[in-house]
């Protein structure tokens, strides 16, 4: 892919998936210095100086760009790690993004483009096993001195004070753990955080869960409990009704019934389809939740959980499950613990956490874990495809770690809702 982009600059292929050949998703060379593999440092970013108003363009072909319209210099470009990018491609992309003139952003931009060339990097003295990400991070960190990481674990970005809509909460400097409220800007801030950490010499750890998770309760007024979740580009609303009396026709039972339903909107997938109920997901959601709910506390009654996938772009079911557990908690239903869920895709020798749709389509195998982190209990485990035992172990460990982190984000969302309503 990279070579192709370089040779035919005028016809940049708009989507990485349309390639006839499956792109080699991972390069073995891209192991990080600390020995962790590539999946742990998902997006790469290129950052250029700018201030005032920021516009974000979501481009169709996976690249995302952020620039200032009147000054026309690019703030940053992000791309999914499945795409390998070279200077020429970046140039093309920038032209597509709105006739950005390279000259204005000056030497710096060109520097970065040079850095992108792996050979050039090696020539410059970069250890071969470094990933591009690390190198670019380091390079850019020299240029961004104005960003400060305040003591109150809030990131403040003085140059970007216009972005007050976005609130970054709770930055744990140790492991680089972020809570983001606005995903596209969040990605950018992730990068910023890393730069800050580098600047301060706190650590070079890149957050493990790099996708942004956004959770909110109280999305649906009519329901007794509801939640909205956004992980990556997947967006989900779950509403919970009840507990209410079971239908007369049903048999007597001294435990409560859980009724789950997952459906898709017509516009959930890139190809406009028919929004419909998803039987398989519904039953899996049921299985994942029933272990966590204390069903004995509402005999003879039913709890209905309705999940609606607004936008489906990979790892839908894990998001639905996590969101549903939040909605249940919001509805005041007794549970042993919140349920967090994460999936991992396997590609040959590599693992990708929270795969996006394209990755899910091309995967060799998948693993989904649903667990109650504070009890360290698993409510559901789904494995498909071909897996070797050590890979499964690695995948599970990865999932459990990510679940614990996801649960932290979920808990802080709930905590906020509870303390808000206390007034």
């Amino acid at each position, binding site marked *: 892919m990279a070579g192709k982009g370089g040779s035919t600059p005028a016809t940049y292929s708009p989507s990485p998936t349309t390639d006839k050949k499956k792109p080699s998703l991972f390069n073995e060379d891209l192991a990080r210095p600390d020995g962790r593999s590539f999946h742990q440092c998902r997006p790469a970013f290129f950052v250029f100086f700018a201030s005032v108003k920021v516009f974000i363009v979501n481009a169709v072909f996976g690249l995302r760009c952020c620039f200032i319209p009147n000054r026309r210099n690019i703030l940053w470009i992000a791309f999914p790690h499945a795409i390998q990018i070279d200077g020429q491609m970046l140039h093309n992309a920038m032209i597509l993004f709105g006739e950005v003139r390279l000259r204005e952003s000056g030497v710096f931009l060109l520097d970065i483009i040079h850095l992108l060339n792996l050979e050039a990097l090696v020539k410059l003295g970069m250890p071969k096993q470094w990933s591009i990400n690390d190198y670019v991070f380091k390079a850019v960190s020299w240029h961004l001195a104005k960003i400060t990481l305040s003591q109150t674990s809030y990131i403040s970005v003085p140059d970007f004070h216009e972005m007050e809509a976005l609130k970054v909460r709770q930055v744990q400097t140790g492991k680089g753990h972020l809570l983001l409220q606005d995903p596209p800007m969040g990605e950018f801030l992730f990068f910023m955080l890393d730069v800050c950490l580098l600047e301060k010499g706190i650590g070079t750890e890149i957050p493990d869960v790099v996708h942004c998770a956004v959770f909110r309760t109280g999305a649906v007024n009519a329901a*007794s409990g509801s939640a909205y979740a956004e992980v990556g580009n997947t967006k989900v609303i779950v509403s919970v009704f009840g507990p209410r*009396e079971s239908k007369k026709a049903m048999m007597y039972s001294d435990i409560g019934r859980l009724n789950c339903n997952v459906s898709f909107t017509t516009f959930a997938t890139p190809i406009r389809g028919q929004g419909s109920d998803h039987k398989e997901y519904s039953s899996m959601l049921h299985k994942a939740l029933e272990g966590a709910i204390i069903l004995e506390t509402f005999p003879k009654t039913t709890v209905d959980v309705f999940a609606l996938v607004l936008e489906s772009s990979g790892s839908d079911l894990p998001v639905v499950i996590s969101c549903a557990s939040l909605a249940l908690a919001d509805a005041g239903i007794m*549970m*042993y613990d919140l349920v967090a869920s994460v999936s991992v895709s396997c590609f040959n020798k590599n693992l990708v956490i929270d795969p996006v749709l394209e990755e899910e389509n091309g995967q060799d195998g998948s693993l989904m874990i649903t667990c109650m982190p504070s009890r360290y209990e698993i409510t559901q485990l789904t494995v498909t495809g071909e897996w070797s035992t050590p890979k499964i172990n690695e995948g599970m460990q990865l999932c459990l770690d990510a679940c614990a982190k996801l649960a932290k984000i979920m808990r802080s969302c709930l905590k906020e809702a509870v303390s808000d*309503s206390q007034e």
Partner: protein
Amino acid sequence: MREIQLPLSQTQKVRLQKALEQLESLSTKVNSDASVIIADSIHVNHEDGVLKGHGTADLNGEVVATLCGVVERVNKLVYVRALRSRYKPEVGDIVIGRVVEVAQKRWRLEINYNQDAVLLLSSMNMPDGVQRRRTAVDELNMRCIFEENDVVCAEVRGFQHDGLHLQARSRKYGKLNRGQLLTVPPYLVKRQKQHFHHLEEFGIDLILGCNGFIWVGEHVEAKDDMIEDQVSQSDSQVLFPNKNCVSLEEQEKNYTILETRKYISRAANAVRVLSTLGFNITLEIIKGIIDLSLSMNLDIHDMLGSEFCVLVAEKEAERRSSMKKRR
């Protein structure tokens, strides 16, 4: 409760914020740090012994919460009071419900509880007011008393083996006509001495159901309606479902004058405003809001606008602070 969803202008936002802050500072709750979420461990002193109450569970010798809410402690008992949950009945509560089913010797009422409540025919005062055994004829004529979807006011009698039982052994209970039913979160209605209110100046009745159902309707004298029913019924002995036999006079009798209807809507909107702001719903506050809207010469529909909401919040803050000063 949640973020108040109103289209506010900047100044209104500031004013509302100020009022809410003032209210917050007035509240004397000390256990602000007691809010927990699911699987949080609750700090307890094990030496004194602990009684684990509702919303708690045991995990490796620790007490953990199974609900989101506030930790309450009564001597040894530790329990979690859920913030958002359905109504939890207590014996003697006055509730308003909607009939969902007419079954054998009983009505089933939806009262915002986990299960439907049961109102037995035998725990109802008969329309003729005579104490006697309920006969098979009475059972057949149950639909003449309450039909499906009727709104009924009753009192919680207690829990029997087959669920929650209600009773309506007084003239003041029974079917509610000619008014509006409003549903608010149950925690906004606190248990009081008096839940039936008659606002004489407006000629309306206000019933604050403990389950968060609130009735605003035209004032009815507790007696006449029932007795007339009984006379006509015992005369004819043939009982029609009451909907089909509405004569012209009856229609006239059912007519509510415009003035009263306006007051009903005004009171209903007052309740809606309180529910959006998340304030407790009591007679005085509702009266205050109605008076405020009247004194401002506000249209009924304007009461739901954001400006009025902000005004109510400010008035409430003022009222509570003045109450505090007096004390």
